[in-house]
């Protein structure tokens, strides 16, 4: 049974809900209509140029809040809502639901190719004996072979895990901040589905994605770390 608890000290830095669909040129031509719908809350306009090698990507526009707390990103075949001040699923859903409804209705997006919900967590840590104390934060450990040390100085793991109704793409990686040398664990997971999708059932897809990602997070974090993010630690 998924735990619906909200953790006051959750290490979440961004939550993104995204849909991908067959290319719709109307989005390129009437992007201003989307902007008009969101501009009061998201007045900042940015354009992402595709990186070299990203030939599959089309130009994407971002409309963001002045403090970057939330934004929408729209391209020929993709639309996403991002929150960088996530205060619980209900609030997240309440914000994106009208925007996605507007988008799908206005640009006649009916068929979906992919629906994904991504949570990006950044967990500061301090090394112990020079290695990453993965086991303090996650129920994972580094076991390449029983005879090898079960510790790592640097970590970069990508996994694609099949689940009954979708898949989770996970990244666990060590990050380092250039100026202070501060380190953190990136725990980045994206639950997505590619089958039996349609825009009318978008919110059901979102809710299912939330259930799956919540279960995943609950399964993967260590109990001791859960205690830390659950309560109000002495500080």
């Amino acid at each position, binding site marked *: 049974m998924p735990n619906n608890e909200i953790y006051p000290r959750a290490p979440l830095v961004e939550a*993104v809900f*995204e849909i991908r669909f067959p290319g719709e040129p109307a989005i390129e031509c009437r992007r201003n209509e989307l902007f008009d719908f969101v501009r009061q809350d998201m007045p900042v306009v940015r354009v992402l140029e595709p990186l070299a090698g990203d030939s599959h990507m089309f130009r994407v526009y971002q409309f*963001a809040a002045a403090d970057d707390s939330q934004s929408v990103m729209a391209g020929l075949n993709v639309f996403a809502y991002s929150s960088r001040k996530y205060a619980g699923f209900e609030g997240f859903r309440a914000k994106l639901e009208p925007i996605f409804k507007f988008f799908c209705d206005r640009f006649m997006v009916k068929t979906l190719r992919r629906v994904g919900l991504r949570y990006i967590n950044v967990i500061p840590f301090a090394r112990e004996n020079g290695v990453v104390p993965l086991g303090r934060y996650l129920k994972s450990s580094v076991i390449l072979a029983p005879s090898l040390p079960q510790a790592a100085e640097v970590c970069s793991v*990508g996994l694609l895990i099949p689940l009954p109704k979708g898949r989770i793409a996970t990244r666990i990686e060590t990050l*380092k901040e250039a100026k*202070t*040398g501060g380190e953190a664990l990136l725990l980045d997971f994206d639950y*997505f589905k590619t089958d039996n999708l349609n825009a009318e059932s978008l919110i059901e897809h979102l809710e299912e994605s939330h259930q799956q990602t919540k279960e995943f997070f609950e399964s993967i974090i260590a109990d001791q770390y859960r205690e830390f993010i659950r309560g109000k630690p002495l500080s």
Partner: protein
Amino acid sequence: MNGTICLDEIRPWVLEKYEQTCRPAMSARGFCGTQEDDLAQMGEPVIPLWDLEIDGRVVRPAVPIAIRLRKDGDLFFAENDSLAVYASGASREEAIEDFRQTAAFFVREFHSLGPDQVMGRGSRLREQFLKVFP
């Protein structure tokens, strides 16, 4: 080695195999900032105090303890106001180790002092330490 591995270095292979479906939902940070910026924007990161070693025993706190880490000049500082433990070191690891040793010192001291042997801030700290490390 700077302590990180950039996934972009193996990205072409990953993308070729999994491109359309498995590329994750786009992040707003693609427009401004990087993952490392998340660290920088965190200000003073907070890490848990997992346990202390006291007289050869490993002791876990009864409530989670947050260690606030910061850099000031050439020194790193590890601090907790509720326990009035303020430690420092030439590296983050040294600062945290100093924190652990200082905290362990005060756990021993406050356990050895009765309520009539402390006053003011000392009384409050004694109560705090005995609650956290009974």
